[in-house]
């Protein structure tokens, strides 16, 4: 049973525009959420996180929004750059029980 879902396997965006990557989860008890970026032939790298007590966290061009009532989070990249082309994974963590789950990833292509 997928506790974290990324329903869009791929996304294409023009350079300079906003990229919005989405993630849905099923367990309201998750404590925080993370986004990882993965380039081909490399391991995922941590990008940004958000605690469940917040609804927004921003780091430069990257902003993560959390909507707890909808059990939905999104990653916004503004402006998108060709170097952002990668697979993005969202992950959810529940501290109690050391539980964490990854989504299946969304492949972002930023077109120059």
């Amino acid at each position, binding site marked *: 049973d997928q506790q974290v879902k*990324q329903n869009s396997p791929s996304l294409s965006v023009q350079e300079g525009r906003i990229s919005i990557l989405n993630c849905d989860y099923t367990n309201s008890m998750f*404590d*925080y959420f*993370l986004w*990882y970026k993965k380039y081909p*032939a*490399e*391991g*995922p*790298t*941590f990008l940004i*996180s958000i605690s469940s007590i917040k609804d927004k966290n921003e780091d430069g061009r990257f902003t993560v929004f959390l909507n707890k009532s909808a059990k939905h989070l999104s990653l916004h990249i503004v402006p998108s750059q060709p170097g952002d082309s990668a697979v993005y*994974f969202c992950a959810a*963590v*529940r*501290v109690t029980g*050391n*539980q*964490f*789950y*990854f*989504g*299946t*990833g969304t492949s972002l292509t930023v077109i120059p």
Partner: protein
Amino acid sequence: DARVTQTPRHKVTEMGQEVTMRCQPILGHNTVFWYRQTMMQGLELLAYFRNRAPLDDSGMPKDRFSAEMPDATLATLKIQPSEPRDSAVYFCASALRVVNQPQHFGDGTRLSIL
């Protein structure tokens, strides 16, 4: 810049052979994770260790997979006997804690079982 090191980067072998994948976590990280990436399942957690002790290996097929940490600088994932369905990219990650800290991933071992 500290990195998680995985060896080998690529492995091709025949069905039935033993496969050993190695991981050197970042110095000072006491938590080590093994993942398998497939097209359909994304990142599957196979097992993880804290302070070299296995905490959870429920994601791992026990009949053929085994994971160990002989010491704090080495984690191993073994498959014996290997099968074609084991073909995937296997990632190791380390962190300061099991949760509340981002995981740092190695670049993976791409395994092909013929």
